[in-house]
């Protein structure tokens, strides 16, 4: 295309945009105005617009229940799942036997902890030198010394089964989606829903179809961890350079050979990044399976937090974080590890040095642990856990008068001046006001499609029948994300001005993102006990991570020439920030904001066990029974709200990027 036609097209685009801008303003103002009018005239408008009356709400839960029971009994899905359940149970039992000596096939003894620690150190050394060796070995030494070995192994035994399954099924589905456009188009919305579906909606079906315990935990974990694997596989296979593909075809590859020798190896990096994601999500989920009675670190943490044993909780929290960081670093090191060539004539043992070293370490520590029982197992009495001391320390610290004064003030201030007023306001608003306002915001951000989605989805939430609870959920997420931006943005702007600080900040955020979400409740509970503030604080900490990360990345990503041009144009630092850097960074920041909302919806549901009054609370109650229908109506209320925001923000970011030519 010639330059002049491009310029023409752009000018036409700009004119259309400016006409569009006034039209957008009119539509948005009309929608928002109508919403406000409804709120003001609340006492006089028909009650249908304020809240849908109960008899207008269809019995979705019953219908869903009927559907599920039809699937389960009439179609006979239950037999299929019970068969799968048998196989998975066999595998998790085998893993459990090897890791902590559960009395099942293959009836080996549990691996001594020292063997696991030493071998992971060797693995770490091979993948990333002595730092990783220290991290990997140190994590397991810590776990053993703290007397948490068995719980950690219970957790890992589920991961050991779930990750290979999640990886293989994800890879397979990814390849199908890459081959068939139609399959991909069908898959995309499913993945979107899975991404926003609250974890209780993974847990309950898993329990009903796969029985309580490790099997249900594995199934929930597999389903939860799979989506990014699918996406990364598609991305990787699409990115194989055309030259490489053509070279393969000209080499006379058959279709199978193309896949096996050309596509899959060339997409290695992306596929391994997918594996990394699978591992991290699996860890996050397996911790949460504590809610369906899966023993392990998560269950212990839940129990300790419930009984307010802060010291023990803290120690378990550290273990979970260490495990997360170790698994993340090891799998990421594998992504970047490139094969090295050996000079001709290198002896066999030198080519396989690390494999031999690993075997030798295994044997050495296995033998040693036969003679030194302390290397085999560390009992509760021998452990170095200092739970009660830390407990006293934390409680002592919180009991100091000025600390107590501060936390009390924060609690009072937020409750009285922030949380309660905004919550009451949101509950006051007529249903139809919220729907119209959301539609207006959707139109403002992304045009008619997000507006339509917001209208339909929020109407659906009203129709599903849990409106007030949905508003409470929405309230928590909005407040927390707003606060996260309030605190996170200045921090990110400060860091982005400095080379070293930005690097540290991104590193810290990336590390924090690998922590299982459950962990974020810990500091909140430590500071504020079990109160509404705790929920907001947990979400706030959790969502600040993406907000800060993407803001720093967006600001740092502004091209050098452009900031230099701004400097040469005589812009002050603030002018440069507001007029140049922020506009260019906005699409990236929007991605962070979107992630923050998704994270917030996830976290607010987890926080239910602290005692919220929102959708999460109801969902948690369904876990006790077999209320699959109710669970799903609640779950989809969350999905609909989250997806409306997701679609609106994403389409805004995409439009912005187009305009900026990014």
């Amino acid at each position: 295309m010639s330059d002049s036609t491009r310029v023409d097209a752009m000018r036409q685009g700009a004119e259309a945009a400016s006409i569009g801008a006034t039209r957008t303003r009119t539509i948005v103002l009309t929608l928002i105005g109508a919403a406000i009018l409804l709120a003001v005239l609340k006492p006089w408008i028909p009650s249908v617009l304020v809240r849908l009356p109960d008899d207008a709400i269809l019995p979705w839960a019953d219908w869903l229940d009927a559907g599920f029971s039809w699937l389960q009994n009439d179609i006979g899905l239950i037999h299929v799942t019970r068969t799968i359940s048998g196989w998975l149970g066999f595998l998790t039992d085998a893993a459990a036997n090897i890791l902590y000596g559960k009395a099942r096939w293959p009836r080996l003894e549990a691996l001594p902890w020292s063997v696991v620690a030493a071998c992971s150190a060797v693995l770490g050394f091979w993948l990333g030198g002595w730092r990783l060796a220290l991290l990997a070995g140190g994590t397991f030494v810590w776990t053993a010394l703290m007397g948490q070995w068995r719980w950690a192994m219970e957790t890992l035994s589920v991961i050991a089964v779930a990750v290979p399954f999640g990886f293989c099924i994800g890879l397979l589905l990814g390849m199908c989606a890459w081959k068939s456009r139609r399959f991909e188009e069908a898959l995309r919305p499913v993945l979107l829903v899975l991404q926003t579906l609250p974890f209780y909606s993974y847990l309950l079906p898993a329990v009903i179809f796969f029985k309580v315990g490790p099997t249900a935990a594995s199934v929930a974990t597999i389903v939860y961890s799979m989506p990014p694997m699918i996406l990364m596989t598609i991305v990787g296979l699409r990115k194989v350079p055309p030259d490489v593909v053509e070279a393969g075809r000209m080499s006379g590859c058959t279709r199978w050979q193309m896949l096996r020798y050309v596509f899959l190896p060339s997409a290695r990096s992306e596929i391994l990044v997918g594996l990394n994601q699978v591992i991290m999500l699996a860890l996050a989920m397996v911790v949460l399976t504590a809610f369906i009675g899966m023993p392990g670190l998560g269950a212990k943490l839940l129990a300790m937090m419930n009984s307010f044993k802060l010291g023990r909780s803290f120690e378990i929290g550290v273990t979970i974080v260490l495990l997360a960081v170790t698994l993340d670093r090891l799998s990421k090191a594998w992504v970047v590890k490139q094969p090295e060539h050996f000079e001709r004539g290198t002896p066999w043992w030198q080519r396989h040095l690390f494999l031999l070293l690993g075997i030798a370490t295994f044997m050495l520590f296995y033998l040693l642990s036969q003679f030194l029982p302390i290397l085999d197992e560390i009992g509760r009495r021998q452990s170095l856990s200092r739970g009660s001391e830390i407990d006293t320390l934390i409680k002592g610290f919180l009991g100091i008068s000025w600390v107590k004064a501060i936390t009390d003030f924060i609690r009072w201030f937020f409750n009285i001046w922030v949380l309660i007023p905004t919550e009451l306001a949101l509950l006051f608003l007529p249903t139809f006001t919220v729907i119209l306002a959301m539609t207006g915001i959707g139109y403002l951000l992304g045009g008619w499609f997000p507006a339509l989605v917001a209208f339909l989805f929020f109407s659906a939430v009203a129709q599903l029948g849990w409106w007030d609870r949905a508003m409470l959920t929405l309230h928590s997420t909005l407040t927390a994300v707003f606060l996260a931006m309030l605190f996170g943005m200045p921090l990110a702007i400060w860091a982005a001005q400095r080379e070293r600080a930005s690097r540290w900040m991104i590193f810290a955020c990336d590390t924090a993102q690998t922590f299982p979400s459950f962990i974020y409740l810990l500091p909140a509970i430590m500071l504020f006990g079990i109160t509404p503030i705790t929920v907001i604080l947990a979400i706030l900490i959790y969502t600040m991570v993406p907000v800060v990360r993407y803001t720093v990345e967006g600001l740092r990503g502004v091209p050098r020439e452009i900031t230099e041009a701004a400097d040469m144009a005589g812009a002050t630092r603030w002018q440069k920030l507001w007029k140049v850097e922020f506009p260019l960074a906005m699409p990236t920041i929007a991605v962070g904001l979107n992630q923050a909302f998704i994270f917030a919806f996830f976290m607010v549901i987890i926080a239910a066990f602290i005692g919220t009054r929102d959708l999460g609370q109801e969902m948690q109650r369904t876990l006790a029974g077999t209320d699959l229908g109710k669970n799903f109506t609640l779950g989809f209320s969350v999905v609909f709200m989250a997806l409306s925001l997701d679609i609106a923000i994403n389409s805004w970011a995409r439009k912005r990027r187009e305009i900026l030519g990014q």
Partner: protein
Amino acid sequence: MDSDTPVISAERVWKLFGPNPEAYLSRMPEGHSFEDIRSDGYIAGVKDVSLEVSKGEMLVIMGLSGSGKSTLVRCFSRLHDITGGVVKIDGQDIMSLNATELIELRRSKMGMVFQSFGLLPHRTVLENVAFPLEMRGQDRHARRERALEMVRLVGLDGREDYFPRELSGGQQQRVGIARSLAIEPNIWFLDEPFSALDPLIRREMQDEFLRLQDMLGKTIVFITHDFDEALRLADRIAIMKDGAVEQVDTPDKIVLDPATEYVAKFTEEVDKASVVHASVLAREGESVDGEPVPGNATILSLARRLVEDRSDTIPVSLPDGRTGALDRKAALAVLFGEKE
């Protein structure tokens, strides 16, 4: 198949990109231009191209980016399925082959070198070179032997166990060349093989390429956007624009007698004396006294003789053993770049 059959022949080949190219081509009026086609929502990658390449010949396809030269070569190897016309390899219509036969054809007869090398990053040099052999199921020992031989041929001995990322661009392309030659193809496609290399390395690789071609005598289709490279390497040059071939001829003829204005623009800057050979300017059958000059000498290399010799015509020994007469004035005009 007799020896006169061209190795590659293309008759009225079309390659259109768009929603439904076959249907469009069948109802498209004769003489539609590239722009007409584009305004109908189609892109003419290859537009009504007919040409032949005979055994042992090197045809260079020259054109700017987007002129369709890469598309054309992909039609010859059926990396693209053509929209209309016929492409024959050794007399066989390649569009009639089924998938297995096509794979067999590529495994036995064709080699291709790519602009950005197309090496498999997870395989060593040796494994990359052996790749086509592995695909056709040759046993490990034989393919290793052959691959080592190829690696030596392109001068990479000692680097067999390196990975592509450990090599320079020039070295990577040597691997690409070795791989394309591993199956001993008759036909060798090179798609801008040296364009991604810096000028010094490019020159070196061209010399290397000429050396290999002297040794191997393959039938070659070579693509370039660099006119100097085309002149340096080609037996014949096809110049492409907007998917169509503007002129196919020997370098001498293209420089002396460009068929269209577009071609003429390319030749303007060329030092014709270094391209045109004595045999092309010579009139056959006239006998002239004196020491004959070789027919494959360029006018530039004869400069001293042309200036010092006072006779009107200079004898030339033609390739077929006869002699011809070179008009000294005409040759001097070429030497000094004067228009006739």
